[in-house]
């Protein structure tokens, strides 16, 4: 059959292309006669006829399919196309925002008074308690004091209330243009609203108009940018927008600093300016996850470089401080820190930078041709057609006196979270716990077969817990990682049989259920899956970028990792909860949901970043309803209302050269509400004494990451970062450490950390709500602070009721 088949097909194809139009009519006549003849002796002859024409049929079918696909894609392309006319003419300039103007009072309450300058479109707020006037743009005195003459464009730009970045949507590689309201605005309109004023800034050249509503509320100044009010008259699309970027901008005033949410919280102190480079660069921290979601950005290092767990920042100037936090659209907020000297401007400035549209990098060699995108280069930036449907609301509040520091800011943010039900209830037990993490299994790639290495079986977990109980340690927060079958495949269920399987897990969970002080969490990574994960459909369940390419990472062994669609995460979590029903004593540890949030352009289930956050909250809520304990890795703010325990909470900042100190801001916010342990494991530290001090300063439970079997087995496995973890070696050290901590620090367990103060480079003081103060000295020599002698590499606990 085959030879004839191909012959026929070949003939038909050539016949088809030879003289299509003329021949078709004749052919049809001929075929009609033939057909008539064939139908007469139907079965045999028809078959041969059909066979002889099958080639033609296929060609026709192919053409039809191509036409359909082509027209569909053209239709899609037309839908997606950006249409505009090129005959846009910028309107006449009607306002000069650089002109001098008087501030008028527009709203007033007990604590603050709001002023607006109709000529400049800027605002200022008077803190009536301290008399400090906070201006949205630096005034003459500030400028003069810092040697600015207002002659250079860069200096004129400091008078802006708004900085926008836009790009041409039609250009494939969207180049960004930045405009400053003071210099580039040609249109200004304002109207009074309740307790404030609504101002529209018009950037005439690109034809972009933005409305900002400034209102005064009990907490302070509130700015709202309604997304629907953003008007674009021409081909340019607004990409991101900095709101009040120069609010409170000041020179290097004494004792002043900028606070921003880098890691656990970071501070750029003004009086340390001499210890920095003169040409510093600005840093931006995006809430929850870097704006561009790629696997590279989810790795630890990049993650910390660009990511903030909370949408907050602060600025301390003299005895006063400004604290700003985003309460709506915070998923799209970034904190932009530009220290003194940045862009040759002698001002310290900090502000929110909101994404108005989502941006994604499209790598031309994303995954098909290998993992090495850098070497091949091709990557273009694309911007969404649609704006993000979310208002951007920021509260600026003003502190003075003793409260005017980051501790006071933490207090304000804490009370905001509590008022809005965004944080869990206060800790009401007094189970000062030992934080443990155990690696259960790993895989060593072998020559023929990969070798599975059981590091801690379920039975051994129990042995460890029993050994601890014998020594009188009965309170543990225990996270079990890599317990699932083929843990590298990100399956959500199936305890590895070499670790004891279901029966092992069952007996452990029973044991855990009997022990009130013990919380066991099984670690899951729902946000990740790979090509071999069970039940994952690569169309439906994985995250796509704006070009319809999976966010993926190709590994050397050919497997591909994906991010999981939020809806799929929700479904998988539901299934997991079903499986977990039988096992009472164990909760869930979410390895990734508490630290990443992303866009998903998946056709079937698209998610914006805020929808993803909502979906994650739904996941947590479902788990909570099922009565399971929730433990979260990382500390993104949306997880606070559900987490029973937060682990791996960072205790440092990324370490840019502009950063002078890290401060436990996140810890101050959640202390008293959620027990937590920080990322430094005692057994992986270069010096346990230093690590202990870090735990004390950051209010962490003592934390160890151990295995039952010797850590020598972990050589050359993916887990070789765990270079020292053998239980038998660490047992005495762990028990000693825990006993020491329990004796000294159970008094602060469940209490709020109300103040953290850096007394010198190596000495800090931490105060809790019950009056307990702890002095921590990292230096090797004994020092004095507040008249108290603190031993070298040691600490002193004072005050309160011990």
């Amino acid at each position, binding site marked *: 059959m085959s030879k004839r088949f191909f012959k026929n097909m070949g003939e038909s194809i050539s016949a088809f292309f030879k003289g299509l139009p003329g021949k078709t009519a004749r052919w049809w006549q001929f075929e009609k006669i033939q057909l008539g003849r064939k139908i007469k002796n139907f079965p045999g002859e028809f078959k041969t006829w059909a066979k002889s024409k099958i080639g033609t049929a296929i060609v026709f079918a192919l053409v039809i399919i191509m036409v359909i696909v082509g027209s569909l894609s053209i239709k899609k*392309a037309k839908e997606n196309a950006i249409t505009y006319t090129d005959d846009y003419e910028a309107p006449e300039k009607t306002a000069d925002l650089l002109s001098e103007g008087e501030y008028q009072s527009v709203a007033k309450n007990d604590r603050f008074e709001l002023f607006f300058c109709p000529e400049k479109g800027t605002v200022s707020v008077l803190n009536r308690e301290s008399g400090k006037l906070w201006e949205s743009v630096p005034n003459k005195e500030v400028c003069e004091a810092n040697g600015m003459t207002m002659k250079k464009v860069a200096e004129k730009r400091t008078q802006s209330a708004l900085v926008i970045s836009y790009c041409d949507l039609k250009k494939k590689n969207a180049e960004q243009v930045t405009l400053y309201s003071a210099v580039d605005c040609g249109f200004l309109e304002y109207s009074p609203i309740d307790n404030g004023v609504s101002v529209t800034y018009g950037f005439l050249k690109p034809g972009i108009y933005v409305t900002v509503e400034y209102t005064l509320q009990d907490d302070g100044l509130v700015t709202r940018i309604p997304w629907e009010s953003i008007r674009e008259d021409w081909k340019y699309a607004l990409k991101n927008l900095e709101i009040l970027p120069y609010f409170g901008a000041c020179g290097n005033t004494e004792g002043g600093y900028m606070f921003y949410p880098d890691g656990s919280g970071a501070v750029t102190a003004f009086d340390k300016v001499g210890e920095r480079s003169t040409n510093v660069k600005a840093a931006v921290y995006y809430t929850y996850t870097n704006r561009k979601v790629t696997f590279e950005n989810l790795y630890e290092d990049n993650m910390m470089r660009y990511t903030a767990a909370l949408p907050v920042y602060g600025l301390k100037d003299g005895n006063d401080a400004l604290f700003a936090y985003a309460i709506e659209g915070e998923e799209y907020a970034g904190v932009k820190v530009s220290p003194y000297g940045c862009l040759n401007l002698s001002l310290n400035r900090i502000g929110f930078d909101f994404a108005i549209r989502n941006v994604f990098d499209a790598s031309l060699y994303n995954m098909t041709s290998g993992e090495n995108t850098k070497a091949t280069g091709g990557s273009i930036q694309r911007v969404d057609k649609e704006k993000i449907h979310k208002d951007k609301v920021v509260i600026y509040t003003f502190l003075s006196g003793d409260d005017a520091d980051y501790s006071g800011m933490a207090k304000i943010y804490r009370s905001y979270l509590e008022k809005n039900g965004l944080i869990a209830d206060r800790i009401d037990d007094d189970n000062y716990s030992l934080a443990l993490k155990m690696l259960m299994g790993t895989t060593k790639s072998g*020559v023929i077969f990969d070798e599975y290495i059981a590091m801690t079986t379920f039975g051994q977990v129990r042995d460890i817990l029993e050994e601890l109980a014998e020594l009188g340690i009965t309170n543990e927060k225990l996270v079990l990682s890599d317990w699932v079958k083929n843990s590298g495949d990100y399956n959500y269920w199936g305890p590895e049989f070499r670790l004891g399987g279901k029966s092992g897990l069952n007996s452990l969970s029973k044991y855990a259920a009997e022990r009130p002080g013990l919380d066991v969490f099984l670690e899951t990574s729902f946000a990740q899956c790979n090509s071999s994960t069970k039940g994952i459909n690569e169309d439906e369940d994985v995250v796509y970028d704006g070009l319809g390419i999976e966010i993926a990472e190709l590994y*050397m062994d050919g497997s591909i990792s994906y991010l999981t669609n939020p809806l799929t995460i929700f479904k998988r979590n539901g299934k997991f909860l079903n499986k977990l029903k039988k096992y009472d004593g164990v909760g869930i540890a979410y390895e990734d949901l508490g630290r990443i949030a992303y866009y998903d352009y998946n056709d079937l289930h698209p998610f914006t970043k805020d929808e993803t956050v909502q979906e994650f909250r739904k996941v947590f809520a479902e788990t909570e309803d099922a009565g399971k304990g929730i433990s979260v890795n990382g500390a993104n703010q949306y997880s606070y209302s559900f987490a029973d325990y937060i682990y791996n909470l960072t205790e440092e900042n990324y370490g840019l050269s502009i950063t002078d100190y890290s401060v436990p801001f996140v810890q101050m916010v959640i202390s008293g509400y959620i027990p937590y342990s920080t990322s430094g494991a005692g057994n992986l530290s270069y010096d346990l004494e230093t690590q202990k001090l870090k735990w004390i300063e950051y209010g962490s439970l003592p934390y160890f990451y151990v295995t039952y079997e010797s850590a020598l087995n972990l050589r050359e496995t*993916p887990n070789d970062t765990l270079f020292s973890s053998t239980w038998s070696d660490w047992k005495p050290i762990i028990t000693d450490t825990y006993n020491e901590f329990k004796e000294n620090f159970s008094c602060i367990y469940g209490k709020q950390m109300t103040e953290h103060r850096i007394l010198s480079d190596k000495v800090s003081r931490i105060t809790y709500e019950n009056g307990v103060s702890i002095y921590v000295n990292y230096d090797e020599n004994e020092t004095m602070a507040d008249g108290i002698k603190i031993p070298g590499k040691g600490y002193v606990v004072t005050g309160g009721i011990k």
Partner: protein
Amino acid sequence: MRSIKKIGICLLAAVISFSSFSARVAYASENSADNYVTRDGNGRQPVPDCYVVSKTIYNLGNFEDPNPDAKKKTSVFKGPRDLFIDDNDNVFIADTGNNRIVMLNSDLETVNVFYGPEGAGAFKTPQGIFVDNDGDMYVADTENHRIVHMGSEGELVEIFSNPESDLATGEVFSPSKLIVNDTGYIYVVRGENIMAIDGNGTFRGYYGQTNIGFNLSDVLIRMFASDQQKLFATKRLASSYINVAYGSDGKIYATSLEREEGEIKKLNSVGTNTYRKYKTVGNSFQNPIKKWWNKAMKSVVAGQSFKFGEYFDDDFNYIEPIFTDICVDNNGIVTVIEQLNGKVYQYDQDGRMLVAFGGLGEKKGTFSRSSSIEVDSKGRIYVLDQINNNIQIFEPTEFIQNIHDATSTYNNGNYQESYELWKKVLATDENYDLAHIGIARALYKQGKYKEAMKEAKIVGDRDTYTMAFDEYKYEVLRAHFLPIVLLALAIVIAVIFLIKMFAKKANKGYWKFLTEKNKKMSVGSGIMYAFNVILHPVDAYAGIKYNRDRINPLVPVIILGLAYVVRVAYLYVVHFPLASIETKNINLWLELVKLWIVPVSWIPASFMATSISGGESKMKEIAFASVSSLTPYIVITTPLMFLSNIMSKSQQSWYGVFEVLAYVGMFLLLFAAMMTLNNYSFGKTVGMMFMSAFLMAVMWLVILLCYVLTGRMIQFVISLIEEFRLNFL
């Protein structure tokens, strides 16, 4: 030729890397470790933090320049290129872009700034600074083409310009890095040499010339080119020196671009490198084939054997490290900075890596371009960055201090003390390789051989294992002399018996094939026949020549399989210190290729060669003959792998003879086959052997080219599709 080599390298590297990196990269990628050690140049093992940044200096601080002549310069550094720390921990910075030398005291406060001594003109981009024990400064005043010797207050002592010598003419003298030894000789880096100048400014010769290495094309040019052509041929230069440092032991430490055994050097008084070299590692005896192979491998994949630095950066891109600067502390511990991946590598007195840290980045503790490194008396490491214009000061942690103490005490022969220190190191990091080695050696010295063997095996330390194993062997032998001798005797007798039986059977297979003229060769007797070629090559080959129609094609396939099985078994069974490759690094595909490539590609090559020059052989018998040349390998390796388990590295030469024997046997058999099958004379056979070898090489080349080109093609198509997808869908 060069491009061919490159393609070959690419292909082999691809084959090797594809299978040897099969380990899944964990989510928190393993490269995220800031501090790590590598095992002989590959595979990072994270270790606890060894150095933490304690301070960063960007400028002169509160220093007021008292010198009215000096134009008021900015306080910040600009493109600084060199650092020096004297015995009192005063820090000197060659602030190149600002044309000055900055002096900080041990508290890191600026105490003096020098713009050039009075009466000698200002410095012009000084790139090097050295301070002797009296506090006299020697400045490499690069663009003034001179070396300025100043007193400790900046007063002029003398100026050295280009010394006159027959050897030193021609080039412009632009000194950059220099040291001054205790006798007052100045050593300046100059191309592939270090130039010595004495206190009078007289040229005292070149020192420690880098190795120019062997290059086939040079030899050919020398042999065949005319004098005129030779003139135009580009002269190959030896690799340049990059930097020098002066050790407290009076030795000169240097870094160079020399790829073979000289990236980091420790030069003795006559200029010989006494630091760790590749050849001091690994086997003392090497059979010629293996040596050639090792060399080939070395050029293909960096890392099988020891190398300084790393050949893959954090993103797994291939790099060839360039060590910009070197410093040595009082214990002889060497620290270098690498330019391409920004890492700081630290090695002990014997050149074993202690830690690697740093890297490129914006973080504290990383660099944009590190230009100089120094260490002070407290062990703090200072790294100068010429783009960030700063000095970062790294404070050693207790962990690394323990390591330093342990290596130093061991080097001083204090084994018990070093044992305790290594134990301390292991208490912090259970997986620290050197600690296991240190403990193994200490245990060996204590006579605890079995424990020493165990420790050494954990980290693959063959030398210590061998020492301990030899002692352990004698111990066992002494204890159970009679039973062991009896057992050995029994085994020898059994083996002889087995060999005899085997030979008999092989002979039987031979006769069976020859006599049963009407039957096809059966598999069993065919294999036996193949083994018979070892004993009677000429007869056996003649036999198959005249009965070629009855050859069973399954037999060569089975023999190939058998040889492969033996090879793999060998890799696993062979005694640990004798293994040429770590079990974890075994790549089954590579082993297959290594074993099969010659016999398999020999078949078409020799067929082609012989068929055009009067050969009588056909493909079938050539296939049988060349594959059966693997039989000596099988016969020798099988007992050898078991026997190796009572041998150690010290018997390696003895052991190596057998390995060579297998290869020689293979070659002889191929020779015999070609001669017999084609009825060639001896001379003709030799010629045809060469011819076949040449054709074989050509074949490989063609295959390589095809591979590379198809790869390109596929990549092109893929990118085309991707482009289409992005633009139109």
